[in-house]
């Protein structure tokens, strides 16, 4: 896949990134991006491939998104079990759950095949392409199950490669995408958020596979909307296969990929002096690093909501900005919904004490004043400390 970024855009992006830890768009990064697609700082970081999880290391704002090594090794152990002996367990599940007739299943483990080779993702992408081509041509030697298939995508001008755990194809039938996850399905139930994240991931693979099939001249509908998920069942590591129609998630993924900002546009739109070099410099004074990031944030804008705390490495930083300005977004979108026209929590508190409202505060002011009055009346006879009468305006 060729991507067309001009050399000077590439150079500008490298300048912006400077020595900050880099990060290519993976499925996880893309999913996190979906949570703050309207934040300019997030868009900039995404385009310049800056790893925000590491950017503020060494400052009070550093985050700890690290995964437990036990989680990691559990995942590995489960994947190994599922792919052992030429995917025996997986094939068994495909047979019992999906009705695949697998007497002479042909399997291919691309991870094992290209394990230690340099540029293995690119080689796997080429081979995945060829494998799909063979499937489309209906070759009897085509594969029924491919592990570690790699699909390419153009993400806002950057080429990115995504790795799907499983690609399953019945001879003459639809092609399914699947993921192996180590969270369990217990009594028919899975953690709804983990399940959702896994299905969103598979839906990206389905989308990319459809595009690939289309490119190769095939019918994209050959790629099934039914996502496959292999997880442990109940308490141990015995695998089970679940399936789910993810048609609307695929549509969402399409929208997500389309909304990723074009890196050329980003590079050209930010001030020419903007760079993360000081921010990322671990030898520099943390206060200065923060100030530099404040300058960047001031110039291009941010869009903090509390959900950023679980997906973006700058969240503590942005939260403090919201705190310092008293912005209602600090307490979350549900509460800012109740404060339209109110510029700060300070104003909200003042209005609740009966402060006279400005014109644009007029709809909300009586509600805040009433709430404040009722609270004060109910607590005046108790041993509360209720200092709400005097609030900073």
């Amino acid at each position, binding site marked *: 896949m060729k991507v067309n970024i001009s050399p000077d855009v590439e150079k500008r992006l490298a300048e912006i990134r400077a020595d900050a830890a880099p990060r290519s768009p993976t499925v996880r990064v893309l999913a996190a991006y979906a949570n703050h697609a309207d934040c300019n700082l997030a868009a900039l970081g995404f385009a310049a491939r800056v790893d925000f999880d590491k950017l503020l290391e060494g400052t009070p704002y550093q985050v700890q998104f690290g995964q*437990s090594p*036990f989680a990691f090794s559990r995942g590995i152990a489960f994947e190994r079990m599922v792919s052992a002996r030429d995917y025996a367990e997986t094939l068994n599940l495909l047979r019992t759950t999906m009705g695949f007739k697998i007497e002479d299943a042909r399997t291919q483990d691309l991870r094992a095949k290209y394990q230690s080779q340099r540029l293995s993702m690119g080689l796997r992408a080429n081979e995945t392409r060829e494998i799909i081509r063979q499937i489309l041509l209906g070759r009897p030697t085509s594969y029924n199950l491919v592990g570690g298939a790699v699909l390419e995508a153009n993400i806002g001008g950057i080429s990115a490669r995504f790795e799907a755990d499983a690609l399953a194809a019945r001879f003459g039938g639809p092609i399914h995408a699947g993921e192996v996850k180590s969270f369990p399905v*217990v009594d028919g139930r899975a953690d709804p958020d983990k399940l959702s994240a896994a299905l969103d991931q598979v839906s990206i693979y389905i989308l990319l596979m459809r595009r690939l099939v289309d490119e190769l001249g095939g019918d994209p509908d050959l790629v099934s909307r039914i996502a496959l998920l292999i997880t442990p069942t*109940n308490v141990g590591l015995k695998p089970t296969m679940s399936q789910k129609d993810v048609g609307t998630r695929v549509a969402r993924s399409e929208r997500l990929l389309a909304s990723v900002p074009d890196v050329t546009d980003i590079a050209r739109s930010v001030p020419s002096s903007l760079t993360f070099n000081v921010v990322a410099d671990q030898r520099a004074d943390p206060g200065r690093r923060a100030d530099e990031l404040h300058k960047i944030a001031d110039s291009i804008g941010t869009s903090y909501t509390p959900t950023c705390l679980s997906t973006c490495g700058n969240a503590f930083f942005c939260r403090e900005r919201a705190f310092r300005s008293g912005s209602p977004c600090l307490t979350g979108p549900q509460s800012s919904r109740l404060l339209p026209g109110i510029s700060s*929590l300070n104003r909200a508190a003042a209005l609740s004490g009966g402060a006279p409202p400005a014109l644009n505060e007029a709809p909300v002011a009586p509600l805040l004043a009433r709430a404040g009055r009722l609270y004060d009346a109910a607590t005046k006879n108790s041993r509360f400390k209720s200092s709400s009468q005097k609030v900073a305006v």
Partner: protein
Amino acid sequence: MKQLDVTLAARSFVEGRAIRTTLFRHRRLGDEPLMLVLWQLGAEPFSLAAASFGRSPRDQNFVVAGDPRNRDLAFAALLKMATWFNGHFEAPSADREEFEHWGQILTRSRSAPQIVVANGSTIEMLGRLGRRLAYLRTDGPKAAPLELVRFGRHLLFLSSHARMPGQQIVIALTELVGSNWATGQSPEERLSLAALNAYISPSKSHAFYEAMKSERYAIGPVPSGEDDENLEPLVEAFNQRRSGDVSAKVVAPLLKPIEDHYRRLVGRTWRLAWDCYERETKWPEAPSVGRRWDLDREAYTQHIDWTMGIGRRRTRQTPRQAAILLRRLEEAKATLEAEEACDDALRMIPYLLDGKAIQGRVIQLDLNNRELANTRMVRRPLVVISSPDPCLMPCGKELWWSVNPDGKSYEVTQVRADEDGGSIVTLKLTTSSKSTPMPRVGQEVCFSIHTTGTVRFFKLPPTEPWTHRPEAPVAEPVALEDSEIRS
């Protein structure tokens, strides 16, 4: 999030500390609860890596499994906890009292245990452990100790009872504290007990920074990535040294490094949990708590009797059980909301703001008002209230006096705005009974949609109809411990 929440969040932000949202506490908080602090291994949802349990801050029992992925080691640790837990949990059931229920005389335990945990995730973990332990085989080659299976059943009971609105057998401190204090934090941030607690008694000028520091460390049961990174080499060394031996003689001396690792983590949560619990006990108990505690004791008694008797429960509900549970949950929630609002003036405020309640002073009383009902003239007393707030209620709306929510209702018959932005509201009692308590002129009153009167009770047929029975019967999976996670 409602208007009052956002008002108090704003005030909390300005004042730099939490603001109390209730005048009472709406849960019974006993003197010697069973405090449980649990830690799991990252991404091993059914594992117990370490735990502290006890009935007072100084009564801190502590166990670690070593490597909880090993079934024998995991069960050894769980057994220590189970032995302690079962004794304390079951003891209250020996002391019974009689009570009347729809004409029958039944018995229930005079008291019940209370389990306190830091957060909702701990309750979920109790449920998972219960799920794992309750169905273990107690015979055959891999027989599990009976204590452990009984423990599992108790845990399953706790996990399902925790869903009942207003229940007091399992207290998650984040929910208890969160329901009593408003802070300038988002709902996500309030899930951290440490961050929430930092707002309630901050030592610095603004709680924001203290909360930020507190958020850094995990409260459990899920460890932080960093914690587990520190743990991993300790577990590896431990496994190497014991070379596959799981006997207590060999294992116990090797556990020290792991114990030290967890003692710090568990200890922090332990102290925090007790501080939060004890702080909440200082508030007076709301009047309706007693009634709900009666229901808790009945549920506890039924569970104990079942467990000691037949014992085994299905892993999933039948459609009938699910339908009944749905209605019970709905009723419990509605009753809880009504009771809390009528018990506690601060809890009534959101309903006043939403137009579901009105408050004011009685300016006129007509005890002898009469109207035509069918063919006779009947007495229907009128109450006229002057309220400082506007009233948007339609005529005909049914309300109850907040001091008598299980009594007869009043109907709104007239609403007039007065010159100061308030309203004059006329209410008509819907009965002529002279024994119904009525307000006096000059009294401050509150009328709301909340009623705690007898609830309509819809029965369901005992047998499952063909519509709800699958064509091909699904084999009910009675879960068994299957393949090893590790050995």
